[in-house]
């Protein structure tokens, strides 16, 4: 069952269409990548999901109900542009956000204390935000995002400005939340992180969704029958007929197999010539390549 269903969602501003008939579902308990180049309409889409703005057209269904103003209490949103009240103390600030999200004061207190402990910053309660470094502020912001135990968490570029240690801390926290059943939307253009974290993605460009599905399926779909081969010894001169090969370093090749042939055909030829094969694997395109390719195709179209 999907936590969020978007059906033909459209939002136009005076001079441009920011979101153009976007349709996709996010399954409960998944980590969903919302990808797109700058200005693609990701933020506009997120603002619709968080009820900051309303869609001009289309339907948004949250957990089986049409999205309405009480749903934000079940959503946690970490915007790309972070913001905290600089003069407020860490504890007060978290308490304020938690209560705005509908927690009672005692509940909020208990959860905040727990979270601060988990992030090993239990003694920060009385520190003012302006006394903290940027990375530390980001931890506080992350806690503010998850303190009310939302069903859906939207993270917009959550790792920018974090050092590797804190990046890992947040990453494992995201996984933990996900294991407990929280659905997560992860918006970014850092593709290696998407491959690492997300199961499903949607790619938005110029307000339209141009690509969606499981990461594995998409890679499968965009693969180009290229294989990576490492060998020892002298390479026989056999490969420029049915197989298109390119050198890839000293003792390695990239071979594209034409339509109608398969990997076994290539291997049998090689074995026939007694080549010592060290490794052989299919090269799947990285999301980065798919992303660039998709965006460029659309640009030129």
């Amino acid at each position, binding site marked *: 069952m999907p936590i969020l269903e978007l059906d033909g969602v459209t939002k136009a501003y*005076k001079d441009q269409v920011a979101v153009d008939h976007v349709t996709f579902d996010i399954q409960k308990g998944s980590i969903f990548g919302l990808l797109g180049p700058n200005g693609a309409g990701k933020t506009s889409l997120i*603002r619709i999901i*968080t*009820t*900051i*703005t*309303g869609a*001009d057209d289309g339907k948004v269904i949250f957990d089986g109900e049409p999205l309405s*103003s009480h749903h*934000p*209490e079940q*959503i946690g*949103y970490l*915007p790309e*542009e*972070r*913001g*905290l*009240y*600089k*003069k*407020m103390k860490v504890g007060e600030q978290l308490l*304020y*956000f938690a*209560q*705005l*999200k509908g927690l009672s004061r005692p509940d909020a207190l208990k959860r905040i204390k727990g979270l601060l402990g988990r992030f090993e910053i239990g003694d920060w309660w009385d520190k003012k935000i302006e006394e903290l470094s940027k990375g530390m502020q980001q931890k506080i912001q992350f806690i*503010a995002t998850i303190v009310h135990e939302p069903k859906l968490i939207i993270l917009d570029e959550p790792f920018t400005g974090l050092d590797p240690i804190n990046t890992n801390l947040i990453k494992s926290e995201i996984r933990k939340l996900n294991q407990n059943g929280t659905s997560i939307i992860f918006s970014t253009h850092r593709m290696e992180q998407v491959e690492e974290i997300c199961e499903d993605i949607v790619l938005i460009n110029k307000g339209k969704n141009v690509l969606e599905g499981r990461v594995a399926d998409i890679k499968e779909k965009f693969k180009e029958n290229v294989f990576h081969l490492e060998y020892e010894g002298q390479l026989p001169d056999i490969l420029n007929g049915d197989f298109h090969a390119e050198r890839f370093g000293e003792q390695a090749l990239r071979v594209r197999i034409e339509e109608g042939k398969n990997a076994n055909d290539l291997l049998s030829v090689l074995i026939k010539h007694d080549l010592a094969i060290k490794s052989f694997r299919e090269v799947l395109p990285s999301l980065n390549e798919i992303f660039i390719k998709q965006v460029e195709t659309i640009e030129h179209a």
Partner: protein
Amino acid sequence: MHKFWLIFKREYLSRVKKKSFILVTLLTPVAIAAFSAVVGFITAMGSQVELEILVRDESGIFEQSAPENGRINYTFSQKDVEDLKRTYQEDGYNMLLVIPPVDELDQRTFNGMYYSPDKPSLSALESIEGKIARAFREAKIRQYALDEKVLEGLRTDFDLENGEIRDNPTEKKAGKLNIIIGTVLGGLMGFLMYMVIFIYGGMVMRSVMEEKVNRIVEIMISTVRPFQLMLGKIFGVGAVGLTQLAIWLVLIPVLLTVVTLFLPGGDPQSMAQMAEGMQQVPTEDLDDFNVNAFIREFFGMNWGLILPVFVLFFFGGYLIYSSMFAAIGSSISEDMGEGQQLMLPIVMIVLVAFYMLFPVLENPNGSLAAFASIFPLFSPIVMPARLAFDPPIWQVFLSLVLLAGTVVFFIWLSGRIYRIGILMYGKKASFKEIGKWLFYKG
């Protein structure tokens, strides 16, 4: 509603708990009291001249009147003037006074001389002159064999009173004093409104800007509606203003009383002496300005109407203008210059209202006063100023109704600008642009 209270509470507490707020709120009355104490002290010191005067009265008139000794002591001598001029300082006198012989009392002005190493103060001189003149007047009365009672009987005054109020026995007397109190009170209330609009309206604007620049607003409005956030802010800051004004309303009079009671120069005797020194003030005015009458008039004013109506106008004016400031704060980002440009129309409206106070107080029931106190952008400043003059009650009610409508309209209008403005970055906000925002869909 719950969220509105949370926002209200945060806006209120975060300001009230600030050190700068506590300092300003407590120190302002202390500063005012200290200032008046210093002024009072200086005046008292100035008036506490103690003079030892040696008088050579060749006319005998002043000596005969046997002037009372107080802070100024008169000692009479019959010695030769030239001798006295040489010795009066050695004998411990500050001043030598020479009154020449008088042959003919039948003249208006008499002359004498004083000799003194230091320049005596004007008030001291006037006090001495007054005493001598009184002695001469008494001598004249004796010479003409006039009856003091007849003379008293010649003093004549004529007062004009408000006939309409006289005819209506339930109303209190509305004399000149009433008009003076009304003018001062009206001016004060009008000025207070003017200050409140700029101080607390500006506070709302800065607070909105801070949230926008710090990008907190995006988190906030993914949780609460922009309108709730704006209202929470406006009311929170308004409550801060009320707290501050309430504290001042109690502390300032208390501290001022303490200062007058405990400071030299505050006691009645020296007050009287100061009044004596202030001969420049025409005596007729002082006769009218009798403290008891003032207190009677002051407490006789229609406070049952003035106070609640003032509070209503106070809220109305604050809400209209602070919501405008909130809208402006949401439209600009870091650039304060842009804000000033947008603020100009508001500043002009408030200034026009403020300058209307002067003609209105001059003629508190004229047609300008009636218009300005009913037109809702001016009424929060002008109507409180008119209240002390018993304006027609229907005008007060009409003005309140219009004000309430305008408050609702401006909060709605600002809300529409605010919800768009807070999410707009990098766009230069002009009036045309802001006008478009009004019609954006949610």
